[in-house]
């Protein structure tokens, strides 16, 4: 399901490709990232956008971090 909402995320930042979302707030809940199953990078104009397929143990979410705006978005979810 497409969501496309800005969200708040706690993440750890390391080397490139070592950005790791740890937990995020969505729909009044705080969700723990239990597993990052895939990560990839896209371009939005000149900005890099890092995408993460993550699981909280029950649902798969796609999170995206835009390095230009420094915003996190919840792109989609799949129960």
């Amino acid at each position, binding site marked *: 399901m497409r969501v496309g909402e800005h969200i708040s995320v706690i993440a750890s930042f390391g080397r490139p490709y070592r950005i790791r979302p740890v937990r995020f707030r969505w729909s009044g809940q705080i969700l723990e990232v239990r597993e990052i199953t895939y990560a990839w990078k*896209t*371009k939005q*104009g000149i900005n890099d956008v890092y*995408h993460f*397929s993550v699981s909280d143990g029950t649902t798969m979410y796609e999170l995206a971090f835009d390095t230009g705006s420094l915003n996190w978005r919840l792109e989609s979810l799949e129960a």
Partner: protein
Amino acid sequence: MPRVIICVDIDAFFASVEQQANPALRGKPVCIIGSGGRTVITTSSYEARKYGIKTGMNIREAKKILPSIIFVIGDNEKYTHTCREMEKIYARFTPDLEIYSIDEAFLDITTTHHLFGGPEAIGTAIKKSVKEMFGINCTVGIGPNILIAKLASDISKPDGLRQVRSQEADALLRDLPVKELWGIGPKTAQRLASLRIKTCGELGRAPASFLRDKFGIHGETLKKMGMGIWERPLQTIPEDAKSVGHSMTLPRDIHEREEIEAYLLLLSEMIGRRARKHRYMGKKISLTIRYSDFETFSRQTTLPRITNDTHGIFQASLNILNSIRLRDKVRLLGVCLSCLIRDPLQIPLITEDRKRSAVLHAVDTINDRYGDFRIIWGSYLKHKRHSGVISPSWKPSGVKNVHVK
């Protein structure tokens, strides 16, 4: 020094990526499809292949074979990113590498394999890195040339690693059906069969004059292929483009002129933008039309001067369209710019041309800054763009690096 070539082939690439990204898909028959209404299967997982579900089948055919099949709309950006990252893994072992397609690469490790413990050690290291970084499997074939390396990979799939040395190639090819050989398609295999040549061994033993007589200049190449000889070097530097083109299967068959024109404008913009980005201009425009009954034809025109102007390409393709009496609804449209010149020195002399060039430059700059299609032609506004399909010739860089969402 005998050449050592590695072929890396990612197993069921798109399907493997989706299965890795979504654990609920792992171990299940999965097909990757496009987002358009009339899409076909671009990749199927090995679980789906067991049932005979293959690339190119439509959704209905696949469902008929296996009603529980899972369809996943492909995410091209995920795959192109993965391909680019894999290129970095390959580059650890040799600078001489060719990304042949999005899921296949060739590495010439002739002069470097001794630094890493030999060809098989490199193959094992690549497989391990790909698995660690992406969680997916690849098959590695090693041989004295591209042909044998590719064959070694093909016969070891999935998740295999095999080296075929020069002295082993003869025995491997002796009874191998010609259709198994990379570069021999069904039609050539059929023609060879009609000449009683069914195995690579028979092809290699056939007289060169006989094959030349039947296949022209290609006959000698075929004989060499049968003998496991392939002299093509790796294409480590992207070659100059011969043409820049795009085609699209439309969401539905259409006959309304206005709609066809809108799609032609979109295709012209995609071509013009790509040509401008890579500093190409072309003189020949061709238009390809496929009717709803799949009859396909192309018409072309030569322009009085070279261009990469969207409007110039559009106008030329429109002129071709106007010269055709469409007998049916249109299913597919394609536009291509060819007779290319790179970095032409001619600057626009006419004020009108200079103004148009400045507008295009401004639009391109904005789209570069904020993303493709941020500024588009008004007449295309009401049409929804759907994601395209990655071309088999997609490359991580150069003019064949087409951005597909």
